[in-house]
């Protein structure tokens, strides 16, 4: 058996409600990293070969792996270094993509500390988001709460009190996540939200925690939180909602967007804006003013 054999054939499944997604696979050197990554997102072993692969390998001072054999076997003898694999540096990781398949290869470097490891996991979701964006998915800075089977999104700029608000909801409101969701249309064409980890929590508190990322809830409403003197709730029009949804999407994606804007980035930004328009016209949106001493609590 060669070193990569079992890892890439099995892997973990990360599939969304529209059927898109991928197989999280790894080389031996990156196995502990992908096991932890999959554990945080509660991913199940993959039983399908139909999904594109997302292969992680390690390249640092301790282990240097280049999965050339794997790439050649999978893609008909065309190796990682050939021109059709386009490398891109995103934070601490390097992503290799090509224009013939949806497969991705990700080089994770040194993650000497726990924080380094979490940091690279956080960044490694960007190619997924980018891929899903082309299929109509919107990464969104928001908390997802379930009430009577309905998905409710609470969003606000950092520091406004989104997590605090969600944590203080009554017991019959169930929190699925408090920071990041992926919004897509499912196979019934409904808007649904998938919960994603609060990666920053790991930096503050290294206690094990996980999120069921493959689960999703139909979205009934989006609330934009504002700190105010008095409690109030107002429906907002689709233009205002578009601007706010677009901002909440950018809050997730901008960590991987370079200061220098490429043609591709412009296209992605326009795509995000257009998707925000569609979402704003379909899902009811509200401005939720919350005071420190009002009835909301």
């Amino acid at each position: 058996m060669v070193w990569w054999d079992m890892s890439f054939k099995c892997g973990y499944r990360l599939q969304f409600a529209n059927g898109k997604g991928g197989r999280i696979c790894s080389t031996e050197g990156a196995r502990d990293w992908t096991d932890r990554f999959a554990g945080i997102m509660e991913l199940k072993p993959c039983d399908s070969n139909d999904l594109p692969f997302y292969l992680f390998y390690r390249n640092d001072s301790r282990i240097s792996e280049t999965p050339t054999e794997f790439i050649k076997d999978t893609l008909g003898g065309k190796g990682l270094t050939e021109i059709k694999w386009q490398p891109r540096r995103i934070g601490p990781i390097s992503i290799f993509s090509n224009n013939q398949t949806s497969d991705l290869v990700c080089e994770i470097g040194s993650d000497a500390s726990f924080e380094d490891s979490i940091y690279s996991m956080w960044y490694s979701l960007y190619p997924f988001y980018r891929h899903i964006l082309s299929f109509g998915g919107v990464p969104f800075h928001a908390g997802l709460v379930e009430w009577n089977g309905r998905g409710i999104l609470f969003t606000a700029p950092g520091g406004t009190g989104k997590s605090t608000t969600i944590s203080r909801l009554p017991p019959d409101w169930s929190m699925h996540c408090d920071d990041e969701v992926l919004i897509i249309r499912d196979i019934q064409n409904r808007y649904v939200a998938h919960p994603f980890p609060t990666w920053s929590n790991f930096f503050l508190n290294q206690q094990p925690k996980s999120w069921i990322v493959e689960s999703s809830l139909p979205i009934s409403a989006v609330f934009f939180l504002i700190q105010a003197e008095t409690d109030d709730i107002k429906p907002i029009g689709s233009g205002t909602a578009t601007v706010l949804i677009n901002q909440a999407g950018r809050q997730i994606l901008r960590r991987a967007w370079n200061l220098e804007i490429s043609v591709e980035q412009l296209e992605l930004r326009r795509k995000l804006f257009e998707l925000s328009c569609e979402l704003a016209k379909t899902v009811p949106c509200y401005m939720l003013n919350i005071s420190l001493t009002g009835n909301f609590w």
Partner: protein
Amino acid sequence: MVDLSRLEVNPNVVFREDFDDINVLFNPETGKSYSLNRVGIVIWKALQNKHSKDDILAEIDSRCKNVPDDIEDHLNEFVAALLENGLVGYVV
């Protein structure tokens, strides 16, 4: 004084007027969005069609009520704001 003769709208900017509350200009280069009132829309569309300043002033006069005497100053101010935010630019 703003020279409109060499001015063009930024081709990357997205303009949407199909919402139920506001009209939106989105500049993907900066990520910023702007709301336009009805007069702003008249001016924006005229700039898209490369109208001259006189044409734009005539357009405003024919389509708007209670146009102030200093409308040209308002137009210059508006176009200067569009320039400052990268929504329009000069053709080099």
